[in-house]
């Protein structure tokens, strides 16, 4: 009897210990940390990422996002009426910390014609906030969520017709930084792939209209990084130096295509698959679903221009899907040389 009792106590003790250890590893602990203070989130436009959060506690974060309908360049001589979060495509990058209580203030500018909303994939709750945030022109909607799960997530508009709102540019990324932040790197950039469906063919001059049928057929004229052809290529290439580690926060806004994300001439040292916790190392092309993301890291060994592409390669050569990293510095001939 006594032995039995002891065993019971022992089991209870083990269970309790287990419970504690689960708590400290799992997401439940994020909810347990005390939330103190308040701050306004620093938002960034692509290709920049807000600086890493150094806080060691969750806080109340206020995110002020404006919805702007505006004509911008889709290519050199091609304009398009974009619907945007923050006046740009992709929308502003939001960075919060695991456990943060996030307040989203979504302002639909008075000059806009349409209603909009936001569905953040980082939200645990109905519609990812879409229902709570639906907002008419001239109005502001507010909702709150707790960032329970760390990771990189897409956000997008979810007002009818959803495919059209996304096709017109309404998406961006939110990064819920884990309590234990990722190791510091030299450079962080924000890249988002997406496609556009226009009446006129690729490169046709002037203001282009949305083509719904091409959207339904999943046959875009444009597939681009960061909202327009050559947004981050040529003179706008992403700068880096030899021996620096570059971390790309990559999203795919879709609305339709899956990206075979690849950097020509580099090998991914580390990829946080689909923006989550699982890390894969030493490979060349990672798949990013529509409405999904990935965190990609690589050390730049050799100077030169590195083309970022969707390796579904017609998209790069014929539809504009190209960004570049321009690496400066000395050449290590043991790693790469001619002859």
């Amino acid at each position, binding site marked *: 009897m006594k032995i039995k009792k002891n065993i019971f106590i022992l089991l209870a003790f083990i269970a309790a210990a287990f419970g504690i250890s689960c708590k400290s590893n799992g997401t439940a602990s994020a909810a347990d940390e005390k939330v103190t203070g308040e701050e306004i989130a620093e938002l960034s436009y692509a290709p920049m990422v807000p600086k890493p959060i150094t806080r060691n506690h969750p806080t109340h974060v206020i995110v002020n996002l404006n919805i702007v309908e505006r004509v911008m360049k889709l290519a050199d001589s091609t304009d398009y009426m974009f619907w945007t979060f923050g006046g740009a495509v992709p929308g502003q990058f939001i960075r919060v910390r695991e456990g943060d209580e996030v307040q989203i203030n979504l302002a639909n500018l008075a000059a806009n014609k349409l209603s909009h*909303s936001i569905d953040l994939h980082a939200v645990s709750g109905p519609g990812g906030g879409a*229902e709570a945030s639906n907002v008419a022109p001239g109005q502001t909607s507010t909702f709150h969520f707790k960032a329970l799960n760390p990771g990189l997530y897409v956000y997008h508009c979810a007002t009818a*017709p959803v495919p*059209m709102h996304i096709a017109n540019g309404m998406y961006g990324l939110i990064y819920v930084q884990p309590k234990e932040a990722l190791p510091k790197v030299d450079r962080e950039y924000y890249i988002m792939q997406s496609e556009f469906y226009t009446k006129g063919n690729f490169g046709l001059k002037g203001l282009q209209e949305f083509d719904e049928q091409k959207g339904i057929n999943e046959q875009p004229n444009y597939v681009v990084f960061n909202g327009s052809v050559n947004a981050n290529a040529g003179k706008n290439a992403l700068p880096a130096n030899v021996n620096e580690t570059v971390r790309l926060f990559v999203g795919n806004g879709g609305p339709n295509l899956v990206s075979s994300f690849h950097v020509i001439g580099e090998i991914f040292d580390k990829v946080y698959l689909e923006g989550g916790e699982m890390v894969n190392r030493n490979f060349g092309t990672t798949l990013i679903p529509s409405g999904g993301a990935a965190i990609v890291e690589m050390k730049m060994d050799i100077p030169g221009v590195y083309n970022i592409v969707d390796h579904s390669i017609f998209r790069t050569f014929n539809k504009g899907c190209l960004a570049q990293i321009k690496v400066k510095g000395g050449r290590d001939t043991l790693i790469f040389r001619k002859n």
Partner: protein
Amino acid sequence: MKVVFAILFFISCLSCESQSKINIAAEKKMVKVKGGKFKTFYVSKTDKPLLVEPFLMDECAVTNKEFLEFVKANPAWSKSKVKRLFADSNYLKHWKSDFEIGESNKNIYNSPVVNVSWFAAIAYCNWKNKRLPNLAEWEIAGNAPPQNIQYTSITDYIMKWYEKPSLPVLPNVKTTYCNTYGLYDMHGLIWEWTFDFNSFISTSDSRNTSNNDNNLFCAGASINVTNREDYAAFLRYGFRGSLRGNYCISSLGFRCVKDLPSNKL
């Protein structure tokens, strides 16, 4: 009674005036809309259509000038007096003061009045002995084809409106197109209030599948909504779904309707 019928006959016989001529009479012209069976664009084939009786509709949206007369006659609806419950802080924000549109705004006297709430629109209609159209009436009226412009499809026409940035000055009424009923600017100038603007949608997340709205979500695959006609309707219904009765929006105005006397018999 005969006189009334004579007037009605007269009204229904009139077609559109020449487009360039802007003639807003003291008593706004109304035209007859035939009515008929109405189905929202997202319903399934088994849903029964709604029967809409014929009715009279203002040929164009209520203008700033017309609305000013209403405010003068009903000071409770002036900018400074109106209750926030009935109109938010954007109410008539483009006007100079309570009873002045403003000298600098004189090119909008004959533009549709916007920044007016649903409550204010209803009050105006009542004052005119009219009412706001319900959604089915408005959609039937709005779906009539244009008769005085070149167009490929009405949806293309509407979509082009979305693709143009808002103009700094809202154009006058009767500056877009006239449809086969003789109604002006049903699309392409402003949004318009309907009496039951929020009746069709119980949730503003358009992908919700827990209720009748799932046809709205499944649009891409639904037989009813595979044509382009419906994409514009989607946007219109989505817009209405985000409204509340006290909202005042710079692209949202209204026009009134009236039952035909014969309906009452």
